[in-house]
């Protein structure tokens, strides 16, 4: 037992009308280990500085010492809420370097699982956003129904969060026999819950007054900051990589790009960013239904998986629409079985960078709502 340390504290009144508070890294609503340094004038925010890097794991440097297949588990851990979606652009990029064309069945499974994972991610996003406004019950309802998606992914890959399921040239293993029925069941369940969440949370009067007209992000500012995903679309910019530069087999499906319309509040406010996620879940359900109707069940998902991944010299930028925005991998190959350099264009980093700009002049409670509506995952921001 050490001696009790004496701390000198002046009991003076606050010397000025502004003071600084540290929000995080240990704070219930910073969505991980983010530290926000906020300057407050009473309850009004005059300045916010996000300090990132608490979850920096040197992922990009690590990748230079691993073979290409060994990197897939690292990629999972970027945005751990949507691991399947992280694997997709990486394996697509390496396949393009190798010149592998995967079979239709693999493409369909990849799309179905990506969209299921997108729904799961948006469910977490909406749930955590509700929690930021103080609604605890919808959080548990959404997590209860995310379980259906997690079960499907668990049946396929054996893991519940970090799947390592998309392999270069195929999949880790084949899907299970009742896969299609389970997916349709999950969609049915998701639609019921989303209707319930619309009643309980999204159209709740208190929730509406809390979230409309807070953290307004105009479309041009969003483009300048490099925001993508629901954050950009909430500002009314209809940019979706699945439509803008269709990868995999997305051009075969009929779906809409959801944008914030400003039916309540202003275009680009927290409510509009959130409603984009709610609508995207429905669009994802539509894609899954179409994909399940078209998907062939026969074929070996591992027939194209190469024994040794050794791409020729070259470099490639491969990107895909992650639930949170554009996730890109810039892969430089020097002809060995390990990449020379991998750079991740992460969604959360760009989306978080807009926070100081859009939270000034609002109250401290609005800062949490704005941060929640940006839907960041610190594994993705810090890498």
């Amino acid at each position, binding site marked *: 037992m050490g001696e009790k340390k004496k*701390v000198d504290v002046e009991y003076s009144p606050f010397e000025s009308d502004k003071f600084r508070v540290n929000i995080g890294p240990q704070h219930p609503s910073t969505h991980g280990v983010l530290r926000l340094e906020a300057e407050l004038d009473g309850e009004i925010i005059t300045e916010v500085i996000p300090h990132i890097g608490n979850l920096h794991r040197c992922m990009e440097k690590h990748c230079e010492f691993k073979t290409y297949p060994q990197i897939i588990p690292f990629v999972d851990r970027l945005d751990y809420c949507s691991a399947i979606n992280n694997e997709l652009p990486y394996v697509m990029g390496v396949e393009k370097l190798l010149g592998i064309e995967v079979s239709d069945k693999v493409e369909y499974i990849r799309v179905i699982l990506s969209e299921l994972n997108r729904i799961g991610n948006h469910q977490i996003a909406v749930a955590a956003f509700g929690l930021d406004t103080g609604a605890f019950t919808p959080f548990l309802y959404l997590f209860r129904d995310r379980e259906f998606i997690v079960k499907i992914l668990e049946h396929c890959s054996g893991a519940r969060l970090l799947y390592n399921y998309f392999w270069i040239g195929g999949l880790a293993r084949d899907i299970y026999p009742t896969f299609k029925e389970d997916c349709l069941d999950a969609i049915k369940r998701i639609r019921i819950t989303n209707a319930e969440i619309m009643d309980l949370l999204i159209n709740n009067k*208190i929730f509406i*007054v809390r979230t409309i007209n807070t953290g307004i992000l105009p479309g041009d500012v969003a483009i300048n900051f490099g925001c993508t995903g629901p954050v950009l679309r909430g500002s009314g910019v209809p940019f979706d990589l699945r439509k803008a530069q269709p990868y995999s087999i997305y051009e075969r499906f009929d779906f809409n790009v959801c944008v914030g319309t400003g039916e309540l509040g202003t275009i680009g406010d927290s409510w509009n960013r959130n409603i984009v996620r709610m609508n995207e879940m429905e669009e994802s359900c539509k894609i899954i239904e179409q994909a399940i109707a078209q998907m062939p069940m026969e074929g070996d998902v591992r027939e194209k998986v190469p024994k040794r991944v050794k791409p020729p010299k070259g470099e490639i930028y491969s990107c895909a629409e992650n639930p949170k925005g554009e996730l890109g991998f810039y892969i430089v190959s020097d002809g060995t079985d390990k990449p020379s350099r991998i750079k991740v264009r992460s969604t959360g980093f760009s989306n978080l960078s807009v926070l100081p700009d859009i939270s000034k002049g609002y109250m401290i*409670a609005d800062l949490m709502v704005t941060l929640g509506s940006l839907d960041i995952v610190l594994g993705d921001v810090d890498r």
Partner: protein
Amino acid sequence: MENFINGFINNEFITALIISIIPLIFVLLYALIAILGELKISAFMQERLGPMRTGPWGIFQPIAEVVKLLQKEDITPDAVNKPLYNFAPFLMFAASYACFAVIPFSSHFIPASLNLGLFYLLAASSLGVISIVMGGWASNNKYSVLGAMRSASQIVSYELPASICLLTIAALTSTFTFGGLGVSKELMTAVGGTHNGFLAGLDIQHINVAQSGGFWNWFIFGGPGNITKIWVIPFTMGLALIYFIASLAETNRTPFDISEGESEIVAGYFIEYSGMKFAMFYFAEYANMYIVAAIMTILFLGGWTSPFGDYMNGPIWGAFWFVSKAFAVVFMQIWVRWTLPRLRVDQLMNIGWKVLLPLSIVCFLVITLWGVLH
């Protein structure tokens, strides 16, 4: 009740001691039940099981929590103002406990049968805000100061509509005491209605007696009177709703829990507290829930009177009715908490000053006008 106990013990002092300890035992027992109720009701609403391991159906969970809090290290941070920091939780609990002096259990047991009971309740329940500011400021933490300031402004502004609700019912009761509308003079004097005039309405006994004779005589349904009261019913019901909303704000419960809004200022004014001092704040919150529920019961739900007239009426049944009505209101508070999101501080002030206060004044004018016309 005093006479009953005094008959056994024959000592004024010990009698007073016993009388004052009964509410303390009640509030401790009640807090345990309410904590378990909160855990189980929220679990039911969220399709969880809630605590299941401590005893059958988890009924010993609140006891386990109290034991846990007792065992915890009582941390006093170096940077705090020690006297105020240590005193605040006890003042908070004392303020809640003081309110129990005038909260009746039945027609024959009110710990202190003051003739200005409502005034006393207002005064005693306002003490709590001092301890919140005290604890928040003395903790020397920016979060706790923010929480304390929010809480103080919130409680002060919501006390106004709540007070007007109390005033309305007091005025209505005075009318009935004067006019004898539906209430017999004998009944009034039987329960100790020794004074009359306007102050009669501030006596909790009078308020309750005025509502006796079935649920249609409760003040939420316009109080006693003939069929002409039907057009005043919307106003009394609105008044009851205003009081319920204001009482949620006074007890810092969702959707008005901005003073301890966990997503912004983590825990608000008690962020630095641990162990038994934290438990004091925790207990006081639940005690305050019961106090506002009891006031709601006294003012609008007929107090200890039976909803079925003379059926199941009497001193023992009175305790049953009073506690069950108050628990029903507590259940409503828990229900609201697990359904709604939280308001922002400026929206909270807007609702308090721009909606509830004018509406309560309108209700006050209409209801007292109706009283005068009779």
